[in-house]
């Protein structure tokens, strides 16, 4: 698989996310405490955009009424029906074996050579050709 440069790491600090199209595939990239994780930006349920979902912590309960909360921001809820996905694995909380979204490998790297892109002037507009 080809590697694609999708942005500058400094533009996605911890806690932030970035929504990009990679060769036509919608991807959402999350920075969790300095580590980057990517998910296919399509909920496996009905196709909602995970990139528009809120990020919450992992809520569990040793018993009724006792809430534990950790891993703040590491669970994304689909904005459509509220399904929760673990950003680190793509797996749903309620049925991790059956329901998951595809993780996308994300890495940071220093790109030494600047890419040249064709730029031309077309009347009053600047036009980029990829």
């Amino acid at each position, binding site marked *: 698989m080809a590697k694609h440069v999708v942005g500058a790491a400094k533009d996605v600090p911890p806690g932030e996310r970035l929504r990009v199209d990679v060769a036509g595939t919608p991807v959402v990239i999350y920075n969790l405490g300095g580590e980057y994780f990517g998910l296919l930006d399509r909920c496996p349920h009905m196709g909602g955009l995970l990139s528009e979902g809120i990020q919450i912590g992992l809520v569990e*309960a040793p018993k*009724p*009424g006792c809430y*534990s909360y950790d891993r703040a921001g590491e669970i994304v809820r689909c904005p459509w029906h*509220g*399904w*929760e996905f673990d950003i680190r694995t793509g797996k749903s909380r309620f049925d991790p074996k059956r329901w998951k979204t595809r993780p996308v490998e994300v890495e940071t790297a220093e790109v030494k050579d600047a890419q040249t892109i064709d730029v031309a002037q077309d009347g009053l507009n600047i036009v980029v050709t990829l």
Partner: protein
Amino acid sequence: MPAPPPGAIDCDLHPAVPNLKALLPYLDDHWRDMVVQRGVHELDSISYPNNAPVTARQDWKPATGKAGVDLDRVRAEALDGFRTDLAICNCLYGVQLLYTEDMAYAFARAVNDWMAAEWLDKEPRLRASIVVPPQNPDYAAAEIDRLAGDKRFVQVLMLVMDEMPLGRRRYWPIYRAAERHGLPIGIHAGSSYRNPVTSVGWPTYYAEDSAAQAQAFQSTLSSLIMEGVFAEFPDLKVVLLESGFAWLPAHLWRLGKFWRGLRMETPWVDRHPMEIAKDHVRLTIQPRDAPPSPEDFERLMTHFDSDEMLLFSTDYPHWQFDGDDALPAGLSPALAEKICRTNPLATYPRLKEIVA
């Protein structure tokens, strides 16, 4: 349409308190006086009005008075009549309707002592549920503790419509006591009439009221699951009595759908509600819903994805079927055996104990 195989266990039989006078010997002195001084008359619920046809099958109805009051008739019609090995008596009397906790407690004790003396002592095939006052769960738990040593009491009896949904923590002392003694909670159709019997208000006709019991069971089951009763009491079983059962898969599919989106609100619900129900919830088969054909019934069974949830019942003397047609058409012999014996024995561990 089939009769049950011999040796069945009838999980819902209704001996009736003939009248208040019959309970007087079993009331404390104070409450016996109060009944007389206050002019308390019969504590019959409107759940089964005495003249409604459903209240007693024509051939089980005495010329005068209530059905289900005569032990010899119960023996002949309900026990010998269906060749049952054991039957669990669920006494429907107006204990849950009372507005005083103390009086409800007194009447619960009286009903239970009456049940032991007038029925269990006289007929070895009978077992019974412990009637408790839900008005005060601490009293209810105390009543469970008082009677749990008598192994002929195999269940705790509540009504599906009380002051609030039964999953609320207010009721947990009852569940804690029941679990401690290995007693399932039997939740029977009926109401303490603190609220309308449908969620949209009072209905006009009896058919509406009867059909709406299933709504109450749905809401109650949601409450038990979502409030975490089965997480808090992992060994507790709940038996829905006169609930119907065709609604259960569809309702739990629906509840499960919302649970998927709102899991973080009830993180103690750690698996799909249908999976929880398969482990903890049982339902009696009378009155059965009426799928139009045996094929429809078979298809319904596939929706349950379990052959362990249904329990045989006659609902004697209520008029739910004619003749000995107590089982739904469309049951395989293997499933009939499970419903009539295996499942009741697995649900009520005390049925396996030999009673001295």
